[in-house]
């Protein structure tokens, strides 16, 4: 059934360095994003290993407290701004124009600029290490982060390094805003004929909602960063440091007004990937397409009404409102879960590596999501806020959720990108080790939170009961590191292997990226199938079914 068109472009001549530096091709830019994000993933991960080694046993002095504080600040900042966001932008960059049948993004040069701002921002953030460090947490709470402003001295790790952190994040913010404009314009304006909004692949829908969130949330973060920078360098804290007439809580409002939508920026495209992978490997359409779109939009809207759930313990926010809306997000997310399960139900499941990672997502994101739903209960949050419960929550949703989906996406689209399959055997080991590692590393952290271990502490004393679980968590972290190593091995092995051309549609897929060669030609498509549903490639392969579905749809 699969059309085994051999890709004439598969035997490409090697692309020169210069071409990579100057490319405006969305497929190449997508790959640049992927490579840079994975490099930052490893760098951020190495700092995580530093954190975990220091916490493996009580009273450790492996790293001094100042370095520890810089580690978790830059670990969090890296993982969120230099890994999770850009890698999703990278996948979207590669996939979205293909899925909507476009030749490229709406603004290819701006697209290149968006990418190149990422390493610039990363360089700025990492140069903080050479400039006295930035020890403020990824949330950069004031007045600690206003540092020496107002004539106070809040300790080391709060000097020029913090200014570099601010500048780096501002640059990354520009990158994301430009990216958001580009994605939205692409999705609004570049769809192939017949690709109506309600025929968009779900991944494109999630990117659409995500980029809208980015467009409205990130500028507010930029404002906050600008105020912080001004306060640190010019006004002595007039905006943000109470010692000089500022408000300590303003930063938190602005940060979380951005920060909560931000976490959905990191999960919605991940859910989109899962919604591509699960139907293909179940050989069924996504159950409840419209409900899924509705749920995505609902999550996007709710995202702007829950930010203060990060501030319950400040005693300065209106609790019922934020608590209720936070809990309410469980409903649309639940719709998605049940849609995925119903998609698998009575399907014909094929457990290739992308599907395994998708199943991992379902199994582990659920844990993180339920953690979150419990956090929405304010009195319980009073207990576990700023403890390892929250650390556990955020890693279950970000690793169990986002990272699992990212790996599902990489294994899924890799043949389309490079015309080669990643090795399935190594892939399965990679998956198994990741799944074990994540649970061993992050499940014990719930219990540590319940036992009262605060987050962001450089060490703990032996008279606490926390040592065994911490050791377990550290073992899990090193298991994850091993799994990441396996992934690297997989990529190397794959490229070492002689090229066996990959067919256009290796997974028996549904969406337009499978209608072109692997890898696609620079102009993406030599021909497009007619687009009459959200599964044009499927329709072409199974015309009888497409007819029936179309008439059923018309009858409804």
């Amino acid at each position, binding site marked *: 059934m699969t059309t085994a068109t051999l890709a004439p472009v598969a035997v490409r001549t090697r692309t020169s360095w210069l071409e990579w530096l100057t490319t405006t091709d969305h497929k190449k830019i997508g790959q640049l994003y992927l490579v840079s994000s994975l490099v930052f993933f490893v760098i951020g991960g190495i700092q995580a290993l530093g954190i975990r080694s220091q916490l493996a046993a009580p009273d450790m*002095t492996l790293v001094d407290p100042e370095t520890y504080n810089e580690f978790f600040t830059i670990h969090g900042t890296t993982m969120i701004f230099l890994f999770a966001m850009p890698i999703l932008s990278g996948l979207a960059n590669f996939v979205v124009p293909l899925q909507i049948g476009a030749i490229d993004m709406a603004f290819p040069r701006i697209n290149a600029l968006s990418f190149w701002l990422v390493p610039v921002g990363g360089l700025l953030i990492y140069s903080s290490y050479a400039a006295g460090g930035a020890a403020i947490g990824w949330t950069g709470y004031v007045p600690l982060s206003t540092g020496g402003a107002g004539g106070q001295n809040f300790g080391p790790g709060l000097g020029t390094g913090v200014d570099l952190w601010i500048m780096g994040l501002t640059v990354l913010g520009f990158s994301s805003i430009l990216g958001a404009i580009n994605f939205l314009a692409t999705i609004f304006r570049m769809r192939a004929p017949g690709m109506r909004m309600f025929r968009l692949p779900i991944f494109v829908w999630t990117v659409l909602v995500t980029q809208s969130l980015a467009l409205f949330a990130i500028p507010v973060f930029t404002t906050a960063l600008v105020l912080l920078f001004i306060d640190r360098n010019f006004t002595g804290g007039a905006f943000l440091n109470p010692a000089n007439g500022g408000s300590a809580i303003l930063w938190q409002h602005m940060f979380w007004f951005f920060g909560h939508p931000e976490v959905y920026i990191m999960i919605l495209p991940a859910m989109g990937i899962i919604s591509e992978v699960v139907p293909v490997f179940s050989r069924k359409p996504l159950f409840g397409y419209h409900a899924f779109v509705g749920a995505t939009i609902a999550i996007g809207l709710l995202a702007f009404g829950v930010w203060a759930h990060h501030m319950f313990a400040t005693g300065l926010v209106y609790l019922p409102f934020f608590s209720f809306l936070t809990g309410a997000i469980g409903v649309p997310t639940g719709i998605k879960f049940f849609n995925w399960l119903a998609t698998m139900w009575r399907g014909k499941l094929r*457990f290739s590596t992308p599907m395994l990672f998708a199943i991992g997502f379902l199994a582990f994101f659920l844990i993180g999501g339920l953690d979150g739903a419990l956090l929405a209960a304010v009195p319980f949050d009073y207990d576990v806020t700023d403890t390892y419960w929250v650390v556990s929550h955020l890693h279950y949703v970000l690793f169990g959720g986002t990272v699992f989906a990212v790996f599902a996406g990489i294994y899924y689209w890799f043949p389309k990108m490079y015309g080669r399959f990643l090795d399935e055997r190594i892939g399965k080991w990679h998956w198994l080790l990741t799944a074990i590692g994540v649970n061993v590393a992050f499940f014990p952290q719930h219990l540590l939170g319940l036992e009262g271990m605060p987050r962001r502490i450089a060490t703990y004393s032996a008279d606490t009961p926390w040592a065994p679980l911490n050791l377990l968590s550290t073992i899990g972290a090193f298991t994850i590191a091993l799994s990441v190593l396996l992934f690297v091995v997989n990529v190397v092995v794959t490229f070492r292997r002689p090229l066996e051309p990959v067919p256009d549609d290796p997974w028996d897929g549904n969406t337009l990226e499978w209608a072109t060669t692997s890898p696609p030609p620079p102009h993406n498509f030599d021909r497009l199938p007619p687009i009459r549903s959200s599964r044009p490639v499927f329709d072409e392969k199974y015309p009888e079914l497409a007819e029936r579905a179309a008439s059923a749809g018309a009858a409804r």
Partner: protein
Amino acid sequence: MIALAATSLAVAACSAAYPPAGATDQGRDIHSLYSWILIPAIVIFVLVEGLLVWSVIRYRRRDDDALPPQIEGNRRLEILWTVIPAIVVLAVFGLSMETLGTVDAKSADPAVVVDVAGHQWYWDFRYEKEGIDVSGAGQRPELVLPTGRTIRFNLSSGDVIHSFYMPAFLFKRDVIPGVTNTFEITIDDPGTYAGQCAEFCGLGHADMKYAIRAVSAAEYDAWVAQQQAAPSGSPPTSPSPSAGGSAAPAGATLEVSASTPTSFEQSSLETAAGQAFTIHFTNKEAGVPHNVAIRDSAGDVLAKTEIATGPADASVSVPALGAGTYTFFCQVHPNMQGTLTVK
């Protein structure tokens, strides 16, 4: 499979998956709220993971040709799994708001009022009605509290944000500069409980600890009487700001040094009253930050050096002090301390 592993891990952890019972009225409420809302969470967890595992086992592909039925949706099912979670969410919300009412309740006339001041990186406590001060500068302060009485806490900070965390009471509240936060508790179980700052506040955040000793009301009253009878040390004369400007750092230079994170190499220092002097601090411990700060018996910090990450040194000129006993300590490691006698 892995879902199964996760399930069994979760089950195994269930015994430990509980916070302590909560030694206060409010903590008990939070504990029971947690028990209640954990039920739907576990039910949903088991249901979803169960469906997942079932699908994985039951619907794995066995033959390769025929397509399974192409089902696009089912209105009724979809309504069902929208409405049921919505009901669960509402129930959890209702329950948590009810608990919130009791946890955040405030009485008209609490029996004990404690003003808590968060500093980098120690806690100061002041019993408002009894006029007792317990300072944490240079020591781990112990907060003695009665059981069975309402206790109000007023929280304030002079520098950055801290969070006053009482793990045994399942409660914390942020300590925010420019804001006074208030909450109340009633302790049920006597005992000694550890407490610690929970909002990242800089270098010494991990060391910003205190202890609570909850005793019976009678014991508490006795403790208060004893404290009031023997005020902690003679109140020192506040440092006279040198009128002529601080340009003249005349007087002696006191040397302090450290090579471990547990104590200074000097346990006591001496200097003359009414004369400004300089403290020169040598941190010999590589990679570890220390400083030297001086506090009076009321807990006010009168002078402090920069924090120096060893090997390094730092100095500070100290204005003239009145005769009396002071404490010098490391702000990063408040347990490093010694006495400064001014004669």
